[in-house]
């Protein structure tokens, strides 16, 4: 299999960057997308050229580290997967594949396809935790949680923080990420004590980081590898309104 990669190259955060094309031969259908990029990097090393920078860790769709914009879609042409789960069989022989870094003011490019997602960590620092010393793992049934609540919290907790929601949103809004984190914690008994402060401060930090607001286009839930529902954002809005009301 042979494809042409058209890849964004940028030396560092300050330089301008631009696209560069690479014709790559010797790929197979069952190679993952990242393996295809690895293959290209090996060729570049052989030619004594600078390799392309991109992020990954687990390569099994659980860490959220990987993530690039491929042919006009976050994480590539399929819905609800990570870049590392994408395979070359999703492309055709001879195809040109455009690879770009996540684009958002709050996600500055560090090098090539790597962006700085610290802004998401800054949102987490405003309440994406429970301020109590938990010691060792407690007895599982000490605090009872109904199955429906546990399921819903788990669906939101599935967020791996990859940033595809921000990348695919026309407003570069981090609303899906922030909502998932808030709803996960606020729906569980352990999170209730700080629920109001959490929703207000995390949503505030989201705006301070320079993310846009939500227009409910729904692009995020299609690109989210965990399929986190956009209704989470509506729920965050409801929780925010309740917290505001409570603080009056």
């Amino acid at each position, binding site marked *: 299999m042979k494809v042409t990669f*058209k890849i964004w190259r940028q030396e560092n955060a300050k330089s301008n960057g631009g*696209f560069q094309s690479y014709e790559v031969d010797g790929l197979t259908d069952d190679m993952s997308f990242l393996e295809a990029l690895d293959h290209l990097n090996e060729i570049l090393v052989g030619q004594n050229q600078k390799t392309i920078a991109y992020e990954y860790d687990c390569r099994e769709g659980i860490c959220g580290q990987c993530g690039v*914009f491929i*042919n*006009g*879609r976050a994480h590539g*042409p399929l*819905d609800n997967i990570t870049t590392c789960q994408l395979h070359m069989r999703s492309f055709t022989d001879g195809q040109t594949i*455009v690879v*770009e870094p996540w*684009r*958002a*003011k*709050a996600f500055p490019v560090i090098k090539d396809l790597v962006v700085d997602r610290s802004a998401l960590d800054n949102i987490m620092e405003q309440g994406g935790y429970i301020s109590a010393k938990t010691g060792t793992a407690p007895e599982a049934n000490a605090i009872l949680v109904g199955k429906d609540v546990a399921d819903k919290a788990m669906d939101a907790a599935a967020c791996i923080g990859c940033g595809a929601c921000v990348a*695919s*949103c*026309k*407003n*570069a*809004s981090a609303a899906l990420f922030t909502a998932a984190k808030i709803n996960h914690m606020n729906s569980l008994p352990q999170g209730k004590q700080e629920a109001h402060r959490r929703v207000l401060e995390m*949503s505030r930090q989201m*705006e301070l980081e*320079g*993310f*846009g*607001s*939500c*227009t*409910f*286009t*729904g*692009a995020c839930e*299609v*690109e989210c590898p965990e399929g986190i*529902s*956009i*209704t*989470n*954002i*509506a*729920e965050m*809005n*409801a*929780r*925010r*309104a309740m917290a505001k009301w409570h603080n009056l």
Partner: protein
Amino acid sequence: MFLRKSIIALTGLFLCIFLIVHLSANIILLLPQETARGLYNAYATTLRESFLIKIVAYVLYLSIILHVIYAIQITFKNRRAKPKKYLENKLRQNSSWASQNMGLLGVAILLFLVVHLANFWARIKLGLGEGVRLDDNGHVDVYEVTYSLFQNSYYVFFYTVLMVPLGLHLHHGFKSAFMTLGFYHKKGLNILAKISLAYAGMMSIGFGIIPLMVYLK
């Protein structure tokens, strides 16, 4: 931005309700010429003389102004959040065109509103331009203003075509407003999406077809 976005949603929904009332009244225009004239002018007079309607009218003006100002603000702020666009972006694969272009659709509606208000509101309420006669019952002949306007095919075309962006704006806006305001019940939202489509369809087809029907009278 959360507060401003909620105001866009609230004013938007108020405007949505206004449109239902407005369209219902405009159905009178489809009746035979003289029946329509009598009823429409009487209705218009009743509205003009009602104190309650006066308040509603001011709420309406304020709603439009707030909706537009905040919408423009939020659109520009959102644009700043994404300064660099993708070389390739297949938006149609993950979202509707209308949802991606609410600002553009809004500008089309605003263009319509300016012309619409100049045609009716400025002439009838502000008394600008050509004077408006009274009908046989002594009511201001609002019907005549409408009827004569829609004898002009350019206006008919304008009034009909611009109901397309209105429909698209409403199709996304109606359901989006509920989510902005915190309605997150999944099944409810599925039903709401259908209501939103039906509502938008009725408004754009309803408002769009009346000028045509009047023209063909």
